[in-house]
């Protein structure tokens, strides 16, 4: 695992495999990485906003749990973005199939489920408050 992390920080290692592709492919891969990173940063921003702008919630520490969940999810998205970028770059250089990934589907389901839970919470509170 640490070997993989070390490789991320060593561009020579990445350049040593296969042949240099059309640079437009590398730049497209880089932009995809940046788009994923912004997705991660948006989740981190959501966590930081929940921690300081939400009022205390009726359940003890629920606000903090929401904040930490969003922060961890954002961090995971950022790390996975680097990993996917490196594996894609390697595949392009070697002329292999691009790596397939379940991650976008899992993330979409997690975000959708989280939003659904919040809708339910808001509705329960609106009805309970009558």
């Amino acid at each position, binding site marked *: 695992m640490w070997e993989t992390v070390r490789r*991320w920080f*060593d561009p020579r290692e*990445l350049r040593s495999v296969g042949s240099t592709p059309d*640079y437009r492919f590398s*730049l497209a891969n880089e932009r995809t990485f940046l788009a994923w990173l912004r997705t991660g940063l948006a989740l981190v921003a959501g966590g930081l906003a929940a921690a300081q702008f939400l009022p205390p919630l009726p359940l003890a520490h629920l606000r903090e749990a929401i904040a930490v969940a969003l922060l961890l999810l954002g961090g995971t998205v*950022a*790390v996975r973005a680097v990993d996917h970028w490196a594996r894609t770059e390697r595949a392009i250089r070697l002329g292999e199939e691009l790596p397939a990934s379940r991650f976008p589907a899992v993330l979409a389901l997690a975000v959708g489920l989280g939003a659904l839970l919040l809708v339910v919470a808001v509705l329960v509170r609106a009805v309970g408050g009558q």
Partner: protein
Amino acid sequence: MTGDPGLQPERTRLAWRRTLLALTVVTVLTVRLALSGDAVGAVLAGVAIAGWAAALALCWRRAVGSGPMRDTSRTMPVVALAAVGQAAVGVLLTVRGVW
């Protein structure tokens, strides 16, 4: 070539600028959360600002430089590490507030 050799680097630089801008917004939120008045919060705010400044310095050339961008580089893991660092500081601050 399809005639857009200049636009590919430009699009990539603009993507870098958007990303560094997003990192800056996140850093502002982290610092705001950290500055709750005690010493530990101030130290963590310093850590957040230092990480942001380091990432900006290391990625600056890729975001606003000129000329070709043909090399793969360390900027990808660096900027991702900065994002993870902000998340980690946020988690520390949030968990600390519970105790």
